[in-house]
Protein backbone atom coordinates (compact mmCIF):
# COMPACT_ATOMS: atom_id res chain seq x y z
CA UNK A 1 0.00 0.00 0.00
CA UNK A 2 2.88 2.37 -0.76
CA UNK A 3 0.53 4.06 -3.17
CA UNK A 4 -1.90 5.08 -0.44
CA UNK A 5 0.91 6.18 1.85
CA UNK A 6 2.32 8.59 -0.71
CA UNK A 7 -1.12 9.85 -1.67
CA UNK A 8 -1.99 11.14 1.78
CA UNK A 9 -0.32 14.55 1.77
CA UNK A 10 2.39 14.92 4.40
CA UNK A 11 1.85 17.92 6.65
CA UNK A 12 3.88 20.76 5.13
CA UNK A 13 5.32 22.04 8.40
CA UNK A 14 8.85 23.11 9.20
CA UNK A 15 10.48 20.01 10.66
CA UNK A 16 11.21 21.32 14.15
CA UNK A 17 12.94 18.94 16.51
CA UNK A 18 9.97 18.67 18.85
CA UNK A 19 7.55 17.98 16.07
CA UNK A 20 9.78 15.30 14.60
CA UNK A 21 10.01 13.56 17.94
CA UNK A 22 6.26 13.75 18.33
CA UNK A 23 5.82 12.29 14.91
CA UNK A 24 8.08 9.35 15.53
CA UNK A 25 6.31 8.59 18.81
CA UNK A 26 3.09 8.82 16.98
CA UNK A 27 4.22 6.44 14.27
CA UNK A 28 5.57 4.06 16.86
CA UNK A 29 2.18 3.72 18.53
CA UNK A 30 0.62 3.39 15.10
CA UNK A 31 2.82 0.46 14.19
CA UNK A 32 1.84 -1.26 17.41
CA UNK A 33 -1.92 -1.04 16.75
CA UNK A 34 -3.08 -3.52 14.11
CA UNK A 35 -6.69 -2.30 14.33
CA UNK A 36 -5.55 1.24 13.57
CA UNK A 37 -3.42 0.04 10.65
CA UNK A 38 -6.25 -1.94 9.10
CA UNK A 39 -8.67 0.96 9.61
CA UNK A 40 -6.20 3.37 8.06
CA UNK A 41 -5.76 1.03 5.12
CA UNK A 42 -9.52 0.80 4.56
CA UNK A 43 -9.98 4.56 4.84
CA UNK A 44 -7.00 5.21 2.54
CA UNK A 45 -8.24 2.80 -0.12
CA UNK A 46 -11.78 4.21 0.02
CA UNK A 47 -10.66 7.85 -0.06
CA UNK A 48 -8.26 7.14 -2.89
CA UNK A 49 -10.91 5.27 -4.86
CA UNK A 50 -13.30 8.16 -4.36
CA UNK A 51 -10.73 10.77 -5.39
CA UNK A 52 -9.73 8.82 -8.48
CA UNK A 53 -13.31 7.80 -9.32
CA UNK A 54 -13.17 9.05 -12.93
CA UNK A 55 -10.09 6.87 -13.52
CA UNK A 56 -11.07 3.84 -11.47
CA UNK A 57 -14.76 3.58 -12.29
CA UNK A 58 -15.47 1.34 -15.29
CA UNK A 59 -18.44 3.53 -16.29
CA UNK A 60 -19.48 7.14 -15.87
CA UNK A 61 -22.88 6.66 -14.22
CA UNK A 62 -23.91 10.24 -14.93
CA UNK A 63 -23.21 10.22 -18.65
CA UNK A 64 -26.51 9.20 -20.29
CA UNK A 65 -24.65 8.25 -23.49
CA UNK A 66 -22.95 5.27 -21.90
CA UNK A 67 -26.12 3.98 -20.22
CA UNK A 68 -28.12 1.17 -21.67
CA UNK A 69 -31.52 0.61 -20.13
CA UNK A 70 -31.35 -3.01 -21.27
CA UNK A 71 -28.60 -3.51 -18.71
CA UNK A 72 -30.98 -2.74 -15.85
CA UNK A 73 -31.10 -5.09 -12.84
CA UNK A 74 -28.06 -7.14 -13.83
CA UNK A 75 -27.09 -9.25 -10.82
CA UNK A 76 -23.48 -8.90 -9.65
CA UNK A 77 -20.95 -10.95 -11.57
CA UNK A 78 -23.45 -12.49 -13.98
CA UNK A 79 -23.81 -11.52 -17.64
CA UNK A 80 -26.93 -9.58 -18.53
CA UNK A 81 -29.67 -11.65 -20.19
CA UNK A 82 -30.06 -9.21 -23.11
CA UNK A 83 -26.73 -7.55 -23.71
CA UNK A 84 -24.38 -10.16 -22.28
CA UNK A 85 -22.45 -7.44 -20.46
CA UNK A 86 -21.34 -8.27 -16.98
CA UNK A 87 -20.89 -5.96 -14.01
CA UNK A 88 -18.82 -6.51 -10.92
CA UNK A 89 -21.45 -5.40 -8.42
CA UNK A 90 -24.44 -5.50 -10.76
CA UNK A 91 -26.53 -2.60 -12.06
CA UNK A 92 -29.48 -0.60 -10.76
CA UNK A 93 -32.87 -0.07 -12.42
CA UNK A 94 -31.48 2.32 -15.04
CA UNK A 95 -28.57 0.10 -15.97
CA UNK A 96 -26.03 2.13 -14.04
CA UNK A 97 -23.05 0.18 -12.79
CA UNK A 98 -23.42 -0.07 -8.99
CA UNK A 99 -19.65 -0.10 -8.46
CA UNK A 100 -19.28 3.18 -10.34
CA UNK A 101 -22.20 4.87 -8.60
CA UNK A 102 -20.70 3.88 -5.25
CA UNK A 103 -17.35 5.44 -6.19
CA UNK A 104 -18.99 8.66 -7.31
CA UNK A 105 -21.40 8.58 -4.36
CA UNK A 106 -18.55 8.18 -1.92
CA UNK A 107 -16.94 11.26 -3.44
CA UNK A 108 -19.97 13.32 -2.47
CA UNK A 109 -20.26 11.69 0.95
CA UNK A 110 -16.60 12.33 1.72
CA UNK A 111 -16.66 15.85 0.30
CA UNK A 112 -19.68 16.78 2.40
CA UNK A 113 -18.21 15.05 5.47
CA UNK A 114 -14.78 16.71 5.22
CA UNK A 115 -16.16 20.15 4.42
CA UNK A 116 -18.76 20.02 7.19
CA UNK A 117 -16.17 18.99 9.77
CA UNK A 118 -13.81 21.70 8.52
CA UNK A 119 -16.56 24.29 8.92
CA UNK A 120 -17.50 23.01 12.37
CA UNK A 121 -13.85 22.90 13.39
CA UNK A 122 -12.96 26.42 12.24
CA UNK A 123 -16.10 27.87 13.79
CA UNK A 124 -15.84 25.88 17.00
CA UNK A 125 -12.12 26.47 17.55
CA UNK A 126 -12.48 30.18 16.88
CA UNK A 127 -15.45 30.63 19.20
CA UNK A 128 -13.88 28.36 21.81
CA UNK A 129 -10.65 30.40 21.80
CA UNK A 130 -12.58 33.66 22.05
CA UNK A 131 -14.78 32.37 24.86
CA UNK A 132 -11.88 30.91 26.80
CA UNK A 133 -9.41 33.74 26.36
CA UNK A 134 -11.66 36.80 26.56
CA UNK A 135 -14.16 35.54 29.13
CA UNK A 136 -16.87 37.91 30.34
CA UNK A 137 -19.82 38.61 28.12
CA UNK A 138 -18.28 37.01 25.05
CA UNK A 139 -17.93 33.76 26.91
CA UNK A 140 -21.43 33.92 28.41
CA UNK A 141 -23.10 34.49 25.05
CA UNK A 142 -21.11 31.86 23.16
CA UNK A 143 -21.49 29.17 25.78
CA UNK A 144 -25.20 29.91 26.32
CA UNK A 145 -25.83 29.47 22.61
CA UNK A 146 -23.82 26.25 22.75
CA UNK A 147 -25.87 25.01 25.69
CA UNK A 148 -29.15 25.75 23.94
CA UNK A 149 -27.98 23.99 20.80
CA UNK A 150 -26.77 21.02 22.81
CA UNK A 151 -30.29 20.56 24.17
CA UNK A 152 -31.27 19.35 20.71
CA UNK A 153 -29.72 16.37 18.90
CA UNK A 154 -27.35 17.47 16.13
CA UNK A 155 -29.28 15.63 13.44
CA UNK A 156 -32.44 17.57 14.30
CA UNK A 157 -30.58 20.89 14.12
CA UNK A 158 -29.14 19.87 10.75
CA UNK A 159 -32.61 18.97 9.45
CA UNK A 160 -33.98 22.30 10.58
CA UNK A 161 -31.15 24.28 8.96
CA UNK A 162 -31.62 22.26 5.79
CA UNK A 163 -35.35 23.00 5.81
CA UNK A 164 -34.86 26.73 6.33
CA UNK A 165 -32.14 26.94 3.67
CA UNK A 166 -34.34 25.03 1.27
CA UNK A 167 -37.08 27.55 1.86
CA UNK A 168 -34.76 30.47 1.14
CA UNK A 169 -33.23 29.14 -2.08
CA UNK A 170 -35.41 29.44 -5.18
CA UNK A 171 -36.75 26.08 -6.41
CA UNK A 172 -34.72 26.02 -9.64
CA UNK A 173 -31.41 26.18 -7.71
CA UNK A 174 -32.35 23.73 -4.98
CA UNK A 175 -30.70 20.67 -6.52
CA UNK A 176 -27.46 22.51 -7.21
CA UNK A 177 -27.38 24.09 -3.77
CA UNK A 178 -28.31 20.91 -1.89
CA UNK A 179 -24.69 19.82 -1.38
CA UNK A 180 -23.64 23.21 0.02
CA UNK A 181 -26.73 23.42 2.18
CA UNK A 182 -25.88 19.97 3.56
CA UNK A 183 -22.35 21.09 4.44
CA UNK A 184 -23.71 24.20 6.14
CA UNK A 185 -26.39 22.27 8.02
CA UNK A 186 -24.07 19.52 9.30
CA UNK A 187 -21.23 21.97 9.99
CA UNK A 188 -23.39 24.34 12.00
CA UNK A 189 -24.94 21.47 13.94
CA UNK A 190 -21.55 20.20 15.06
CA UNK A 191 -19.40 23.16 16.20
CA UNK A 192 -20.40 22.93 19.85
CA UNK A 193 -18.14 19.97 20.66
CA UNK A 194 -15.11 21.82 19.33
CA UNK A 195 -15.97 25.07 21.11
CA UNK A 196 -16.47 23.36 24.48
CA UNK A 197 -13.20 21.44 24.36
CA UNK A 198 -11.15 24.37 23.06
CA UNK A 199 -12.62 26.71 25.66
CA UNK A 200 -11.80 24.27 28.42
CA UNK A 201 -8.23 23.83 27.20
CA UNK A 202 -7.80 27.58 26.67
CA UNK A 203 -8.87 28.30 30.24
CA UNK A 204 -6.03 26.06 31.41
CA UNK A 205 -3.44 27.35 28.95
CA UNK A 206 -4.06 31.05 29.35
CA UNK A 207 -2.70 31.12 32.89
CA UNK A 208 0.53 29.39 31.97
CA UNK A 209 3.81 31.23 31.91
CA UNK A 210 4.37 31.26 28.18
CA UNK A 211 1.08 33.07 27.64
CA UNK A 212 1.93 35.60 30.33
CA UNK A 213 5.32 36.06 28.70
CA UNK A 214 3.74 36.64 25.32
CA UNK A 215 1.39 39.16 26.87
CA UNK A 216 4.31 40.97 28.54
CA UNK A 217 6.17 41.16 25.25
CA UNK A 218 3.10 42.97 23.96
CA UNK A 219 1.66 40.57 21.43
CA UNK A 220 -1.91 41.23 20.44
CA UNK A 221 -4.67 39.03 21.89
CA UNK A 222 -5.32 37.64 18.42
CA UNK A 223 -1.69 36.62 17.97
CA UNK A 224 -1.60 35.07 21.44
CA UNK A 225 -4.73 33.09 20.69
CA UNK A 226 -3.72 31.82 17.27
CA UNK A 227 0.05 31.56 17.58
CA UNK A 228 0.54 30.54 21.18
CA UNK A 229 -2.56 28.92 22.59
CA UNK A 230 -3.94 27.27 19.46
CA UNK A 231 -0.98 24.91 18.83
CA UNK A 232 -1.27 23.68 22.40
CA UNK A 233 -4.95 22.84 22.27
CA UNK A 234 -4.83 21.17 18.88
CA UNK A 235 -4.50 17.53 19.99
CA UNK A 236 -8.02 17.12 21.38
CA UNK A 237 -9.33 19.05 18.37
CA UNK A 238 -7.78 16.47 16.05
CA UNK A 239 -9.43 13.62 17.95
CA UNK A 240 -12.84 15.28 17.89
CA UNK A 241 -12.41 16.06 14.20
CA UNK A 242 -11.83 12.39 13.39
CA UNK A 243 -14.86 11.21 15.35
CA UNK A 244 -16.89 14.11 13.95
CA UNK A 245 -15.95 12.99 10.45
CA UNK A 246 -17.55 9.60 10.99
CA UNK A 247 -20.58 11.29 12.54
CA UNK A 248 -20.81 13.81 9.70
CA UNK A 249 -20.67 11.06 7.07
CA UNK A 250 -23.41 9.18 8.89
CA UNK A 251 -25.43 12.38 9.33
CA UNK A 252 -25.12 13.13 5.62
CA UNK A 253 -26.17 9.59 4.75
CA UNK A 254 -29.11 9.82 7.14
CA UNK A 255 -30.31 13.14 5.75
CA UNK A 256 -29.92 11.94 2.17
CA UNK A 257 -31.67 8.72 3.04
CA UNK A 258 -34.58 10.67 4.50
CA UNK A 259 -34.82 12.62 1.26
CA UNK A 260 -33.62 15.92 2.70
CA UNK A 261 -30.04 15.72 1.46
CA UNK A 262 -28.16 15.02 -1.75
CA UNK A 263 -30.59 14.88 -4.72
CA UNK A 264 -30.91 11.79 -6.96
CA UNK A 265 -29.06 13.68 -9.71
CA UNK A 266 -26.00 13.87 -7.45
CA UNK A 267 -26.42 10.80 -5.26
CA UNK A 268 -24.32 10.29 -2.15
CA UNK A 269 -24.11 6.94 -0.38
CA UNK A 270 -27.26 7.82 1.58
CA UNK A 271 -29.19 8.62 -1.59
CA UNK A 272 -28.03 5.34 -3.13
CA UNK A 273 -29.29 3.45 -0.08
CA UNK A 274 -32.60 5.30 -0.35
CA UNK A 275 -32.87 4.28 -4.00
CA UNK A 276 -31.77 0.73 -3.24
CA UNK A 277 -34.36 0.31 -0.50
CA UNK A 278 -37.13 0.42 -3.10
CA UNK A 279 -35.75 -2.70 -4.77
CA UNK A 280 -35.25 -4.67 -1.57
CA UNK A 281 -38.73 -6.15 -1.74
CA UNK A 282 -38.39 -7.35 -5.31
CA UNK A 283 -35.16 -9.22 -4.66
CA UNK A 284 -32.57 -6.88 -6.23
CA UNK A 285 -30.57 -6.86 -3.02
CA UNK A 286 -27.27 -5.67 -4.50
CA UNK A 287 -28.53 -2.17 -5.29
CA UNK A 288 -29.00 -1.64 -1.55
CA UNK A 289 -26.39 -3.94 -0.09
CA UNK A 290 -23.15 -2.62 -1.58
CA UNK A 291 -23.70 1.09 -0.86
CA UNK A 292 -24.75 0.20 2.68
CA UNK A 293 -21.66 -1.95 3.16
CA UNK A 294 -19.42 0.83 1.86
CA UNK A 295 -20.98 3.35 4.23
CA UNK A 296 -20.56 0.98 7.14
CA UNK A 297 -16.92 0.22 6.31
CA UNK A 298 -16.15 3.91 5.96
CA UNK A 299 -17.86 4.99 9.19
CA UNK A 300 -16.55 2.07 11.24
CA UNK A 301 -12.91 2.47 10.14
CA UNK A 302 -12.91 6.21 10.75
CA UNK A 303 -14.43 5.59 14.18
CA UNK A 304 -11.80 3.00 15.06
CA UNK A 305 -9.08 5.32 13.79
CA UNK A 306 -10.47 8.07 16.01
CA UNK A 307 -10.48 5.73 19.01
CA UNK A 308 -6.86 4.89 18.47
CA UNK A 309 -5.93 8.53 17.89
CA UNK A 310 -7.52 9.49 21.21
CA UNK A 311 -5.32 7.00 23.03
CA UNK A 312 -2.21 7.80 21.02
CA UNK A 313 -2.46 11.56 21.58
CA UNK A 314 -3.17 11.20 25.27
CA UNK A 315 0.17 11.44 27.08
CA UNK A 316 -1.32 10.07 30.28
CA UNK A 317 -2.06 6.73 28.62
CA UNK A 318 1.44 6.17 27.29
Amino acid at each position, binding site marked *: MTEAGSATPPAPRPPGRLRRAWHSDFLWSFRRAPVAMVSFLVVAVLVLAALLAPLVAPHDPFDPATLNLMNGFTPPGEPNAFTGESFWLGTDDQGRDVFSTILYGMRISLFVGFSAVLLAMVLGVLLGLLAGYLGGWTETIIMRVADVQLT*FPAILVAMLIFGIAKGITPPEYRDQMAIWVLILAIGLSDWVQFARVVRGATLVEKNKEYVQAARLVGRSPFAIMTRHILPNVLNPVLVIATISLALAIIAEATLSFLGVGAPPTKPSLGTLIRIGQEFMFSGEWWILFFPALTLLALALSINLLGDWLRDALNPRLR
Partner: protein
Amino acid sequence: MLAYVIRRVAQSVLVLFVVGLVAFSMFRFVGDPVDNMLGQERTQADIERLRETLGLDQPFPVQYWRFLEQAAQGNFGLSYRQGRPVAEILMERLPATLELAFVSGLLALVGGIALGIFTAIRRRGLAANAIMTLSLVGVSLPTFLIGILLIYLFSVELGWLPSFGRGEVTGLGGWWTTGFLTQSGLKALILPAITLGLYQMTLIMRLVRTEMLEVLRTDYIRFARARGLRDRAINFHHALKNTLVPVITITGLQLGSIIAFAIITETVFQWPGVGLLFINAIQFVDIPVMAAYLMLISVMFVGINLIVDLLYFAIDPRLRVDRTAGRGT
Protein backbone atom coordinates in the same frame (compact mmCIF):
# COMPACT_ATOMS: atom_id res chain seq x y z
CA MET B 1 -32.51 25.13 46.59
CA LEU B 2 -35.26 27.58 45.74
CA ALA B 3 -32.81 29.93 44.03
CA TYR B 4 -31.53 27.02 41.95
CA VAL B 5 -35.04 26.00 40.92
CA ILE B 6 -35.96 29.55 39.96
CA ARG B 7 -32.77 30.02 37.96
CA ARG B 8 -33.28 26.71 36.20
CA VAL B 9 -36.91 27.51 35.32
CA ALA B 10 -35.95 30.97 34.07
CA GLN B 11 -33.28 29.38 31.89
CA SER B 12 -35.83 26.99 30.39
CA VAL B 13 -38.23 29.82 29.63
CA LEU B 14 -35.40 31.72 27.94
CA VAL B 15 -34.56 28.72 25.77
CA LEU B 16 -38.20 28.41 24.73
CA PHE B 17 -38.29 32.12 23.96
CA VAL B 18 -35.25 31.80 21.69
CA VAL B 19 -36.75 28.78 19.94
CA GLY B 20 -39.98 30.72 19.50
CA LEU B 21 -38.03 33.52 17.84
CA VAL B 22 -36.43 31.02 15.45
CA ALA B 23 -39.83 29.54 14.67
CA PHE B 24 -41.32 32.95 14.01
CA SER B 25 -38.39 34.05 11.84
CA MET B 26 -39.01 30.95 9.77
CA PHE B 27 -42.56 32.11 9.18
CA ARG B 28 -41.51 35.62 8.39
CA PHE B 29 -38.48 35.12 6.17
CA VAL B 30 -38.57 31.68 4.58
CA GLY B 31 -40.25 31.40 1.23
CA ASP B 32 -43.52 32.95 0.22
CA PRO B 33 -46.42 31.05 1.75
CA VAL B 34 -48.81 32.51 -0.82
CA ASP B 35 -46.65 31.01 -3.55
CA ASN B 36 -46.80 27.65 -1.85
CA MET B 37 -50.53 27.58 -1.27
CA LEU B 38 -51.76 28.76 -4.63
CA GLY B 39 -51.14 26.69 -7.70
CA GLN B 40 -49.95 27.86 -11.10
CA GLU B 41 -53.40 29.21 -11.98
CA ARG B 42 -53.75 32.33 -9.88
CA THR B 43 -54.69 35.95 -10.24
CA GLN B 44 -53.36 39.01 -8.47
CA ALA B 45 -56.70 39.23 -6.64
CA ASP B 46 -56.29 35.67 -5.34
CA ILE B 47 -52.86 36.55 -4.01
CA GLU B 48 -54.11 39.71 -2.29
CA ARG B 49 -57.06 37.92 -0.77
CA LEU B 50 -54.95 35.09 0.60
CA ARG B 51 -52.36 37.54 1.92
CA GLU B 52 -55.11 39.26 3.87
CA THR B 53 -56.66 36.05 5.20
CA LEU B 54 -53.27 34.85 6.38
CA GLY B 55 -52.44 38.25 7.91
CA LEU B 56 -49.28 38.61 5.87
CA ASP B 57 -50.05 42.25 5.07
CA GLN B 58 -49.53 43.28 8.71
CA PRO B 59 -46.27 44.88 9.96
CA PHE B 60 -43.58 42.73 11.57
CA PRO B 61 -44.20 43.45 15.29
CA VAL B 62 -47.93 42.89 14.87
CA GLN B 63 -47.29 39.56 13.19
CA TYR B 64 -44.79 38.58 15.93
CA TRP B 65 -47.25 39.44 18.69
CA ARG B 66 -50.00 37.52 17.00
CA PHE B 67 -47.66 34.57 16.55
CA LEU B 68 -46.75 34.50 20.25
CA GLU B 69 -50.36 34.87 21.23
CA GLN B 70 -51.48 32.07 18.98
CA ALA B 71 -48.51 29.79 19.70
CA ALA B 72 -49.19 30.02 23.43
CA GLN B 73 -52.66 28.69 22.69
CA GLY B 74 -51.23 25.91 20.56
CA ASN B 75 -52.42 27.45 17.33
CA PHE B 76 -49.92 27.41 14.49
CA GLY B 77 -52.27 28.21 11.65
CA LEU B 78 -52.93 26.21 8.54
CA SER B 79 -50.52 23.78 6.95
CA TYR B 80 -49.41 25.15 3.56
CA ARG B 81 -49.60 21.72 2.09
CA GLN B 82 -52.78 20.25 3.55
CA GLY B 83 -54.70 23.45 4.23
CA ARG B 84 -55.78 22.15 7.64
CA PRO B 85 -54.96 23.48 11.13
CA VAL B 86 -51.46 22.35 12.11
CA ALA B 87 -52.51 21.65 15.71
CA GLU B 88 -55.16 19.25 14.43
CA ILE B 89 -52.68 17.39 12.22
CA LEU B 90 -50.11 17.20 15.03
CA MET B 91 -52.65 15.90 17.53
CA GLU B 92 -53.72 13.26 15.06
CA ARG B 93 -50.12 12.09 14.61
CA LEU B 94 -48.85 12.47 18.16
CA PRO B 95 -50.27 9.23 19.63
CA ALA B 96 -48.37 7.15 17.07
CA THR B 97 -45.05 8.77 17.97
CA LEU B 98 -45.64 8.67 21.71
CA GLU B 99 -46.60 5.00 21.64
CA LEU B 100 -43.51 4.16 19.60
CA ALA B 101 -41.27 6.24 21.87
CA PHE B 102 -42.80 4.70 24.98
CA VAL B 103 -42.29 1.12 23.84
CA SER B 104 -38.75 1.83 22.61
CA GLY B 105 -37.87 3.60 25.83
CA LEU B 106 -39.21 0.71 27.89
CA LEU B 107 -37.32 -1.76 25.73
CA ALA B 108 -34.11 0.23 26.04
CA LEU B 109 -34.48 0.57 29.80
CA VAL B 110 -35.42 -3.02 30.62
CA GLY B 111 -33.05 -4.57 28.08
CA GLY B 112 -30.25 -2.15 28.87
CA ILE B 113 -30.39 -2.64 32.64
CA ALA B 114 -30.73 -6.43 32.37
CA LEU B 115 -27.84 -6.78 29.92
CA GLY B 116 -25.78 -4.26 31.88
CA ILE B 117 -26.13 -6.23 35.10
CA PHE B 118 -25.42 -9.47 33.28
CA THR B 119 -22.25 -8.22 31.58
CA ALA B 120 -21.03 -6.68 34.83
CA ILE B 121 -21.54 -9.79 36.97
CA ARG B 122 -20.27 -12.26 34.38
CA ARG B 123 -17.52 -9.91 33.28
CA ARG B 124 -15.21 -12.60 32.00
CA GLY B 125 -17.86 -14.88 30.56
CA LEU B 126 -18.05 -15.68 26.88
CA ALA B 127 -21.63 -14.43 26.52
CA ALA B 128 -20.82 -11.11 28.19
CA ASN B 129 -17.89 -10.55 25.86
CA ALA B 130 -20.01 -11.38 22.85
CA ILE B 131 -22.67 -8.92 23.98
CA MET B 132 -20.08 -6.16 24.47
CA THR B 133 -18.60 -6.71 21.01
CA LEU B 134 -22.03 -6.76 19.42
CA SER B 135 -22.94 -3.53 21.17
CA LEU B 136 -19.89 -1.84 19.59
CA VAL B 137 -21.12 -2.78 16.15
CA GLY B 138 -24.60 -1.63 17.12
CA VAL B 139 -23.31 1.81 18.05
CA SER B 140 -21.51 2.20 14.71
CA LEU B 141 -24.56 1.21 12.64
CA PRO B 142 -26.66 4.17 11.57
CA THR B 143 -30.28 3.90 12.76
CA PHE B 144 -31.72 3.71 9.28
CA LEU B 145 -29.47 0.80 8.33
CA ILE B 146 -30.62 -1.13 11.40
CA GLY B 147 -34.20 -0.54 10.29
CA ILE B 148 -33.51 -1.69 6.75
CA LEU B 149 -31.67 -4.75 8.04
CA LEU B 150 -34.60 -5.72 10.27
CA ILE B 151 -37.07 -5.20 7.43
CA TYR B 152 -34.96 -7.35 5.16
CA LEU B 153 -34.70 -10.15 7.72
CA PHE B 154 -38.17 -10.23 9.21
CA SER B 155 -40.37 -8.86 6.45
CA VAL B 156 -38.72 -9.77 3.15
CA GLU B 157 -36.94 -13.02 3.98
CA LEU B 158 -39.03 -14.49 6.79
CA GLY B 159 -42.29 -12.65 6.17
CA TRP B 160 -43.15 -12.62 9.86
CA LEU B 161 -43.71 -8.94 10.51
CA PRO B 162 -45.09 -6.03 8.49
CA SER B 163 -42.52 -3.65 7.01
CA PHE B 164 -44.51 -0.43 7.14
CA GLY B 165 -47.44 1.33 8.78
CA ARG B 166 -49.08 1.00 12.14
CA GLY B 167 -51.46 -1.88 11.56
CA GLU B 168 -55.05 -1.62 12.72
CA VAL B 169 -55.62 1.11 15.27
CA THR B 170 -58.43 1.62 17.76
CA GLY B 171 -59.79 5.02 18.73
CA LEU B 172 -59.72 5.88 22.42
CA GLY B 173 -61.54 8.76 24.08
CA GLY B 174 -62.05 10.92 21.03
CA TRP B 175 -58.54 11.80 19.84
CA TRP B 176 -56.12 9.12 20.99
CA THR B 177 -55.56 6.19 18.68
CA THR B 178 -53.77 3.10 19.88
CA GLY B 179 -52.17 0.12 18.18
CA PHE B 180 -51.87 -1.78 21.46
CA LEU B 181 -55.27 -3.42 21.24
CA THR B 182 -55.10 -5.21 17.92
CA GLN B 183 -52.82 -8.02 16.87
CA SER B 184 -51.72 -6.29 13.68
CA GLY B 185 -51.03 -3.10 15.64
CA LEU B 186 -48.77 -4.93 18.07
CA LYS B 187 -47.01 -6.77 15.27
CA ALA B 188 -46.37 -3.54 13.39
CA LEU B 189 -44.87 -2.02 16.52
CA ILE B 190 -42.13 -4.62 17.03
CA LEU B 191 -39.61 -3.71 14.32
CA PRO B 192 -39.80 0.09 14.67
CA ALA B 193 -39.54 -0.17 18.45
CA ILE B 194 -36.41 -2.33 18.21
CA THR B 195 -34.87 -0.02 15.61
CA LEU B 196 -35.47 3.05 17.72
CA GLY B 197 -34.58 1.46 21.06
CA LEU B 198 -31.42 -0.41 20.10
CA TYR B 199 -29.03 2.52 20.26
CA GLN B 200 -30.36 3.74 23.60
CA MET B 201 -30.29 0.18 24.87
CA THR B 202 -26.57 -0.20 24.14
CA LEU B 203 -25.99 3.17 25.76
CA ILE B 204 -27.85 2.24 28.95
CA MET B 205 -26.25 -1.20 28.99
CA ARG B 206 -22.73 0.23 28.86
CA LEU B 207 -23.59 2.80 31.51
CA VAL B 208 -25.08 0.22 33.89
CA ARG B 209 -22.11 -2.06 33.34
CA THR B 210 -19.54 0.63 34.12
CA GLU B 211 -21.44 1.85 37.18
CA MET B 212 -21.98 -1.70 38.42
CA LEU B 213 -18.28 -2.49 38.10
CA GLU B 214 -17.43 0.67 40.03
CA VAL B 215 -19.88 -0.10 42.80
CA LEU B 216 -18.89 -3.77 43.06
CA ARG B 217 -15.36 -2.63 43.86
CA THR B 218 -16.36 -0.50 46.86
CA ASP B 219 -15.84 -1.35 50.49
CA TYR B 220 -19.44 -1.77 51.49
CA ILE B 221 -19.89 -4.52 48.92
CA ARG B 222 -16.84 -6.25 50.29
CA PHE B 223 -18.27 -5.97 53.80
CA ALA B 224 -21.57 -7.35 52.59
CA ARG B 225 -19.71 -10.30 51.19
CA ALA B 226 -17.80 -10.70 54.45
CA ARG B 227 -21.10 -10.73 56.30
CA GLY B 228 -21.99 -13.79 54.25
CA LEU B 229 -24.82 -12.33 52.23
CA ARG B 230 -25.81 -14.23 49.15
CA ASP B 231 -24.69 -12.99 45.73
CA ARG B 232 -28.25 -12.25 44.71
CA ALA B 233 -28.80 -9.99 47.71
CA ILE B 234 -25.52 -8.17 47.15
CA ASN B 235 -25.93 -7.69 43.43
CA PHE B 236 -29.53 -6.59 43.40
CA HIS B 237 -30.13 -5.00 46.80
CA HIS B 238 -26.83 -3.31 47.47
CA ALA B 239 -25.15 -2.74 44.13
CA LEU B 240 -28.01 -2.15 41.73
CA LYS B 241 -29.69 0.44 43.93
CA ASN B 242 -26.64 2.66 43.84
CA THR B 243 -26.23 2.22 40.12
CA LEU B 244 -29.64 3.52 39.24
CA VAL B 245 -29.25 7.23 39.98
CA PRO B 246 -27.17 8.09 36.91
CA VAL B 247 -29.20 5.62 34.86
CA ILE B 248 -32.42 7.46 35.66
CA THR B 249 -30.92 10.78 34.61
CA ILE B 250 -29.40 9.56 31.40
CA THR B 251 -32.61 7.76 30.52
CA GLY B 252 -34.56 10.94 31.10
CA LEU B 253 -32.27 12.90 28.84
CA GLN B 254 -32.35 10.14 26.25
CA LEU B 255 -36.14 10.29 26.14
CA GLY B 256 -35.78 13.54 24.23
CA SER B 257 -33.45 12.03 21.66
CA ILE B 258 -35.77 9.04 21.27
CA ILE B 259 -38.47 11.43 20.15
CA ALA B 260 -36.03 13.15 17.77
CA PHE B 261 -34.59 9.95 16.38
CA ALA B 262 -38.13 8.73 15.85
CA ILE B 263 -37.98 10.90 12.72
CA ILE B 264 -35.58 8.42 11.11
CA THR B 265 -37.37 5.30 12.29
CA GLU B 266 -40.75 6.66 11.25
CA THR B 267 -39.45 7.37 7.76
CA VAL B 268 -37.96 3.90 7.35
CA PHE B 269 -41.16 2.21 8.47
CA GLN B 270 -43.61 4.80 7.12
CA TRP B 271 -44.92 5.08 10.67
CA PRO B 272 -47.63 7.76 10.68
CA GLY B 273 -46.22 9.89 13.51
CA VAL B 274 -45.07 13.49 13.91
CA GLY B 275 -41.52 12.67 12.76
CA LEU B 276 -42.68 11.54 9.33
CA LEU B 277 -44.87 14.64 9.24
CA PHE B 278 -41.79 16.80 9.95
CA ILE B 279 -39.71 15.18 7.20
CA ASN B 280 -42.52 15.67 4.71
CA ALA B 281 -42.83 19.27 5.89
CA ILE B 282 -39.13 19.86 5.18
CA GLN B 283 -39.41 18.32 1.73
CA PHE B 284 -42.34 20.57 0.85
CA VAL B 285 -41.14 23.60 2.86
CA ASP B 286 -44.33 23.53 4.92
CA ILE B 287 -43.25 26.20 7.39
CA PRO B 288 -46.19 26.12 9.85
CA VAL B 289 -45.75 22.39 10.39
CA MET B 290 -41.97 22.78 10.77
CA ALA B 291 -42.38 25.61 13.26
CA ALA B 292 -45.06 23.80 15.26
CA TYR B 293 -42.99 20.62 15.39
CA LEU B 294 -40.00 22.64 16.52
CA MET B 295 -42.00 24.25 19.31
CA LEU B 296 -43.59 20.97 20.35
CA ILE B 297 -40.30 19.13 20.54
CA SER B 298 -38.61 22.05 22.32
CA VAL B 299 -41.26 22.10 25.00
CA MET B 300 -40.74 18.37 25.44
CA PHE B 301 -36.94 18.59 25.50
CA VAL B 302 -36.76 21.57 27.78
CA GLY B 303 -39.40 20.10 30.06
CA ILE B 304 -37.63 16.76 30.29
CA ASN B 305 -34.26 18.42 30.91
CA LEU B 306 -35.76 20.58 33.63
CA ILE B 307 -37.44 17.68 35.38
CA VAL B 308 -34.32 15.54 35.16
CA ASP B 309 -32.14 18.34 36.52
CA LEU B 310 -34.46 18.96 39.43
CA LEU B 311 -34.79 15.23 40.13
CA TYR B 312 -31.04 14.86 40.08
CA PHE B 313 -30.73 17.68 42.52
CA ALA B 314 -33.29 16.07 44.79
CA ILE B 315 -32.00 12.49 44.58
CA ASP B 316 -28.27 12.83 44.93
CA PRO B 317 -26.84 15.60 47.09
CA ARG B 318 -23.27 14.61 46.20
CA LEU B 319 -23.73 15.73 42.64
CA ARG B 320 -25.17 19.17 43.27
CA VAL B 321 -22.00 20.93 42.21
CA ASP B 322 -21.13 19.47 38.84
CA ARG B 323 -23.37 17.61 36.45
CA THR B 324 -21.82 18.00 33.05
CA ALA B 325 -20.84 14.35 32.81
CA GLY B 326 -24.31 13.24 31.77
CA ARG B 327 -24.20 15.15 28.54
CA GLY B 328 -23.61 13.01 25.50
CA THR B 329 -24.79 12.74 21.95
